[in-house]
């Protein structure tokens, strides 16, 4: 009781503040899109009240705060969806919808209050196929004295129900989270997937394989409907049931659109999520790794829906990353680099990171994860995600419910508070110190509302569409409660009244469909609908059991903006027959049944992909293998690795037989390899001279032949950032032919990490120069090394040779004076143009304004087809926690802050007008211990700006680097001055590391192929694995690699090169720490 009052007080306080704030805001804005209607008006007085006791609290039951469920559906067939709420500890409630947001509590009379000790999710579905919705309530049974079983309330068609779970075989007693109905075996009736959660210790990872040993309490259950009796077929169907399955999220969708519904299960903690593809024969194949490069770590609720209107279902999986700077910096975040490495490589788990994930469906190919790019990666302690076109503009929006009464991952609590209060009590006596629990900070926060743009981008609409009110909202259902055609929202809240949000959308049109089928699946669960409107398509599937522990109204809802007519609607029924409706009125609710029984066959595109993988790789059996060196162990605050820039690639005629051969320089402790071209392919050749160089880490190489192909030079630049016991790994060298022998000449220079080696022909005198574009000083990142020419070329007097952290360079006559000039790009710098004045290179300003980026690659290409050369630039992309803009550049401070002889770098990004360090106190103090003395508690550190943390004086002695764009894009040539134009969103999912120009289409016009992805970052950043490459024909004509037959996802490319074998072009892709790929180019 005490607690509730405290909550009320708190909430009142926050509400008052929010109210006064929003009042000010709403003076300048139209009314909210949603109004929260109070219980006093609706009559929905349900509260999910949680009472902590010494016997039962978050210490005894890990999911104590996960909340109850909510189901929305029309139980009396009066056209208005009714509401059912399950409560954890109290009685469940059923409310009849009387219209106009008036509800009548019929819980008691309907006989649906339930009897289980601890209820979780609830769903509505017509289990007995009588046309009336029944109610299924999931419970946790068998721990903490929780009694009862899952209950099935069969609708007596008179507003009363009879609990009949046993008769249906559904009186299961497991650690249930929620359930979903779908017809997985396509036999015309509804089957059920029961999602259970583990309570097993998560203190040690254990082998990933323990998921294969079924546990009856924690393992998920697939229940097949055999004539009204549900039979557990999990094992035979290939469903995992291990003791480590912390099942919290459940989404059903025909993800690969083969006509059979698939399953995505989100698992909490270290257990991987499961992606079950339906084999169509009653079994599933778990395929997560093949399709997902990484997932959310503490996976909670999820939702599948087509958010970019390409006709394929996308997926969001929620986690708990906070947006608020203060919460972010005082909460436990991601694993350390080494822990993640151990969990993935040794224990066999997949990559998981602590933030929301948005998986864009690449038409059945591996997903692109783009939550940060989409603006929805951090919504705090999140439970339910539901896509819906809330403003009915034709693009799906997103509602996220969140909040937790107490934040158990608060760092001060973990390290300081807890110990002194709890001490040994918990382990020894099981006594719980209530005061200790009270010391966890509150996680009562406002829900999130995002407006979708239809292309994967979302815009935060908090305080515009919904009022910011701090709540603990969990299970959520959507539907049209008042029959006005827009989607209303209902949330089940902990310790306060359920949230009923009335949607006030006006001046936008809709179409609402409900289905009435004659099969055992009367509501048409699994029906797919395409709405065609003015050349656009919208796609929906009817799987109402979605979000989090809930089911929504079983309808299909489309928003169509201002359109007043609909071109056509195609409905594909669960039995894979279809029909097209052409005369559906806007702003109507239409009930549809099957007619014609026309079988639906997928439009199989018979287009051949442009690229076809060659399995024998033409004999180029090269696999790059990185050494065990980790930059983060040496320079703990380095923003990304610099030791993973290899391998080096050079193509040219090494054995002087007139055919191009391939040189691949290895990582440290891996020797360089040469593949010589023979008639049928390439053959690995032994050059003992090269074997001696295995100590060196080769990152860049180039090739130039001269004297009619009788001589060549092959300079190799090294890197690796690893000094180790000798500097030999950083020694550049030059490979060439002398008197018929392959010679390796070591070059002695100050050890540096090379960025780019480029051979430049001296046009004047037939000679050559080699440009060494250097990137960084080993173990002193931020100290810019000198770049230089070897040979007659030189920089003009007065040029600072420390050009920047060079990553790439090209030679091109950008000023059309007949001399090949030099353009260099790198990190924390703007591209630099050097004009060639008879061998002397002078920097000249060619950009209308500097564009400082983390540039990785450059290629000249006339992308706008105006006849002059533009320059395509690969940057870091927009799908990362780095953040930069022209007005608020990302900053990097470089200095020996603590004056101990070792330099460090600190990244700071702007948020709401202030700069904050990207990393938290744990990370920063690992390098700068003085911060632990300065900030004794995390709460003292959290929310502080970089100036407040480091002190102005300390910052003032640092060198400051800046980046003002992270977008990849191109420099448009406007009559010899250039301006930067970013690429479209699809090319911003990951760093772009390499380009290649070629007539890939075989139409006489050259295109550029781009490749990327990058993994050399700490788990805080995740993995940039979602770029499948792109073929850039022109500014307006860009095709993503997954549509071209390229398999580049989840691998980090370094080089693209087109090679010729017997007059047939092949594409060679060289990856870091992986094997190379060869593709045949299938030109029409």
């Amino acid at each position, binding site marked *: 009781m005490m607690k509730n009052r405290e909550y009320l007080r708190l909430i009142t306080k926050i509400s008052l503040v929010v109210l006064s704030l929003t009042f000010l805001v709403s003076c300048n804005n139209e009314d909210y899109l949603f109004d929260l209607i109070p219980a006093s008006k609706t009559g929905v007085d349900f509260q999910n009240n949680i009472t902590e006791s010494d016997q039962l609290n978050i210490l005894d039951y*890990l999911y104590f705060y996960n909340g109850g469920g909510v189901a929305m559906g029309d139980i009396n067939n009066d056209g208005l969806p009714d509401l059912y709420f399950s409560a954890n500890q109290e009685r469940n409630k059923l409310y009849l919808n009387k219209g106009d947001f008036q509800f009548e509590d019929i819980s008691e009379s309907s006989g649906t209050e339930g009897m289980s000790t601890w209820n979780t999710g609830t769903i509505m579905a017509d289990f007995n196929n009588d046309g009336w919705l029944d109610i299924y309530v999931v419970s946790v049974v068998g721990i903490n004295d929780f009694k009862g079983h899952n209950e099935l309330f069969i609708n007596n068609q008179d507003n009363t129900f009879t609990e009949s779970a046993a008769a249906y075989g559904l009186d299961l007693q497991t650690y249930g989270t929620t359930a979903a109905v779908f017809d997985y075996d396509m036999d015309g009736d509804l089957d059920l997937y029961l999602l259970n959660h583990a309570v097993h210790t*998560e203190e040690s990872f254990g082998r990933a394989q323990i998921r294969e040993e079924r546990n009856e309490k924690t393992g998920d259950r697939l229940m097949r409907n055999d004539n009204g009796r549900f039979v557990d077929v999990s094992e035979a169907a290939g469903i995992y049931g291990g003791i480590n399955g912390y099942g919290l999220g459940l989404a059903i969708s025909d993800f690969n659109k083969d006509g059979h519904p698939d399953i995505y299960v989100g698992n909490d903690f270290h257990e991987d999520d499961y992606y079950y593809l339906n084999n169509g024969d009653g079994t599933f194949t778990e395929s997560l790794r093949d399709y997902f490069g990484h997932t959310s770590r503490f996976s909670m609720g999820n939702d599948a829906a087509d958010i970019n209107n390409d006709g394929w279902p996308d997926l969001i999986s929620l986690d708990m990353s906070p947006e608020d700077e203060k919460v972010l910096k005082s909460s436990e975040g991601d694993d350390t680099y*080494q822990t993640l490495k151990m969990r993935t490589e040794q224990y066999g788990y997949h990559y998981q990171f602590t933030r929301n994930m948005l998986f864009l469906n690449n038409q059945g190919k591996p997903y692109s994860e783009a939550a940060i790019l989409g603006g929805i990666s951090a919504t705090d302690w999140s439970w339910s995600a539901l896509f819906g076109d809330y403003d009915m503009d034709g693009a799906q929006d997103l509602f996220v419910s969140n909040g937790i009464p107490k934040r158990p991952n608060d760092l001060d609590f973990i390290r300081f508070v807890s*110990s002194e209060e709890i001490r040994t009590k918990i382990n020894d006596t099981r006594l719980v110190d209530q005061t200790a629990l009270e010391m966890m900070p509150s996680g009562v926060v406002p829900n999130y509302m995002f407006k979708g743009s239809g292309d994967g981008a979302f815009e935060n609409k908090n305080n515009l569409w919904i009022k910011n009110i701090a709540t603990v909202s969990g299970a959520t259902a959507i539907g049209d409660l008042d029959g006005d055609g827009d989607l209303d929202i209902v949330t089940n809240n902990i310790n306060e009244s359920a949230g009923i949000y009335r949607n006030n959308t006006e001046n936008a049109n809709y179409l609402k469909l409900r289905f009435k089928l004659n099969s055992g699946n009367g509501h048409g669960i699994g029906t797919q609908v395409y709405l065609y409107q003015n050349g656009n398509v919208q796609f929906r599937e009817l799987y109402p059991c979605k979000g989090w522990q809930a089911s929504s109204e079983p309808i299909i809802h489309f928003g169509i903006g201002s359109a007043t007519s609909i071109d056509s609607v195609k409905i594909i029924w669960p039995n894979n027959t279809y029909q097209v409706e052409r005369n559906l009125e806007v702003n109507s609710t239409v009930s549809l049944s099957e007619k014609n029984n026309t079988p639906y066959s997928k439009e199989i595109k018979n287009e051949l992909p442009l690229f076809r993988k060659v399995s024998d790789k033409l004999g180029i059996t090269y696999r790059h293998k990185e050494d065990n060196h980790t930059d*983060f162990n040496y320079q703990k605050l380095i923003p990304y690795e610099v030791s993973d820039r290899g391998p080096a690639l050079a193509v040219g005629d090494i054995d002087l037989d007139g055919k191009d051969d391939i040189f691949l320089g290895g990582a440290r402790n891996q020797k360089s390899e040469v593949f010589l071209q023979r008639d049928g392919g390439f053959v690995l050749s032994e050059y003992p001279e090269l074997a001696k160089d295995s100590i060196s880490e080769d990152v860049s190489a180039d090739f130039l032949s001269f004297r009619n192909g009788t001589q060549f030079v092959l300079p190799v630049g090294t890197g690796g950032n690893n000094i180790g016991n000798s500097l030999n790994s950083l020694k550049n060298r030059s490979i060439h032919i002398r008197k018929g022998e392959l010679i390796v000449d070591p070059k002695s220079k100050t050890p540096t990490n090379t960025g780019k080696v480029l051979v430049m022909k001296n046009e004047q005198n037939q000679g050559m120069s080699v440009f060494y574009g250097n990137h960084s000083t080993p173990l002193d990142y931020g100290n810019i090394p000198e770049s230089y020419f070897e040979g007659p070329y030189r920089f003009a007097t007065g040029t600072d040779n420390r050009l920047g952290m060079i990553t790439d360079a090209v030679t091109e006559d950008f000023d059309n004076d007949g001399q090949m000039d030099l353009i260099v790009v790198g990190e924390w710098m703007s591209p630099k143009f050097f004009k060639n004045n008879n061998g002397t290179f002078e920097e000249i300003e060619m950009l209308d304004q500097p564009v400082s980026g983390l540039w990785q690659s450059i290629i000249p290409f006339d992308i706008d087809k105006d006849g002059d050369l533009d320059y395509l630039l690969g940057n870091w992309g927009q799908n990362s926690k780095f953040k930069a803009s022209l007005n608020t550049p990302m900053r990097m401070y470089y200095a020996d802050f*603590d004056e101990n002889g070792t330099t*460090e770098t600190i990244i700071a990004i702007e948020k709401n007008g202030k700069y904050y360090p990207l990393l938290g106190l744990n990370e920063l103090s690992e390098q700068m211990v003085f911060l632990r003395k300065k900030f004794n508690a995390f709460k003292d550190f959290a929310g502080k700006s970089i100036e407040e943390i480091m002190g102005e004086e300390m910052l003032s002695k640092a060198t400051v680097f800046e980046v003002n764009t992270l977008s990849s894009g191109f420099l448009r040539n406007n009559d010899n001055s250039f301006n930067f134009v970013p690429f479209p969103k699809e090319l911003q999912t990951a760093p772009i590391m390499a380009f290649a120009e070629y007539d890939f289409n075989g139409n006489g016009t050259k295109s550029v192929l781009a490749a990327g992805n990058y993994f050399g970052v700490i788990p805080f950043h995740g993995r940039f694995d979602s770029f499948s490459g792109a073929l850039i024909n022109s500014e307006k004509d860009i095709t993503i690699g997954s549509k071209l037959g390229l398999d580049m996802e989840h691998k980090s490319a370094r080089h693209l090169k087109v090679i010729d074998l017997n007059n047939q072009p092949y594409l060679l892709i060289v990856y870091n720490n992986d094997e190379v790929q060869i593709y045949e180019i299938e030109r029409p």
Partner: protein
Amino acid sequence: MMKFRFMKLRDPKNTPLVGLILAIFLVGCSTSEPIEISAEDYTATVDKVTEIMVHDIFSPPVASRIYAYPNVAAYEIMIQNNAGYKSLSGQLNQLEPVPQANDTTINFRLASLVAHMDVSRTLLFSEDRMASYRDSLYGVWEKTNSSEFEKSRDYGLQVSEHILQWLDKDFYKQTRTMPKFTVDTEDPSRWQPTPPAYMDGIEPHWNKIRPMVLDSAAQFKPAPPPAFSMEKESDFYKELIEVYEVSEEITKKGDESEEIEIAQFWDCNPYVSVTRGHLMFATKKITPGAHWIGITKIASKKAEYDFDETIYAFTKSSVAMFDAFISCWDEKYRSNLIRPESLINQNIDENWEPILQTPPFPEYVSGHSVVSGSAATVLTDIFGDNFSFLDDTELPYGLPVRSFSSFNAAAQEAAVSRLYGGIHYRAAIDEGLDQGINIGNLVIERLEMKL
């Protein structure tokens, strides 16, 4: 008037005017009592340091450093007023003579305590906690006899400054930014992070810290551990199985068994992380060094040591332990041996958990053994063999009192507790204890302290 006096007199650069006021004041307060400082005041300060260390969470090697330097500072002041002791300058590595007091009316005990608190405060994270403890003492002393307090405090701070300059060159600062330990995942014999927190290996460069007495970190390099082998007949495997079997056996006996009591009594893990779902917290205890500091206190009290003798005992034992950690950590990252928990989970029983949480650093040799060996040897030298005592050091952490017949008996028990705890093989315990005894004997042999 009072306020004015307080503010001005704290200023060490007294102006003539203030001097005049001071003189007037002194005349006016000629009844000032001398400030009494007892052995209990010293041990209470050491206890305060321990308490703050537990809050701040310092690893065992770092904790040993936070004990040693303040004691040395206090000792170097104390000896100026007691001809029975000899300075450690010239005896401890690179320690120069501290500035001599040129005023014989200084309260050297008070100055000792001030220096101890000041050096401690600098080494701890939560300075404010130490500062508020200090300020409460300062307040009392000031009230009792402000002139005695101030000149003694000033001298204490002067020596503290000297010690801080000395410790600043012990390479600690440099080791903070040295590389983290890189886990070798390919060699099955190598250490790897252990459940539940899978923390990185701590202090991989502790062997680079300047020792106080040892010639080098490797001076008492122990014999290598039994060769790694998973062959059932190998010595290594036998030791591995012994850990598993002992653990299974005593687990069967239950929590009340002597072995489990011993394991828990000597756990001395500063940070035991506990996870309950999304709820995480830590149970924090003192370090093994702190436990022996506690025993030193118990012994000093039982022997009715006065202030000076107490400082002597603390200084000698903490110096020995400081070097013990350097020596032990040198071997840990040399042999880089995998913990029993990793191997048992991988090869014998994947659900096995040790009775104690495995600490985050390589197995060989046992830190408890080296440290206990060194401390017990030194304490035996100070207090004599067969010095029995009741050890209530762990009482604040919910653990019982244990009685020991001698320091060596306690060290033996501390060492073997790691086998019971399931976190060390036998060799690490036996070899570690010998290594510690060698260090203790070297400290006894080299350091001329009590004349």
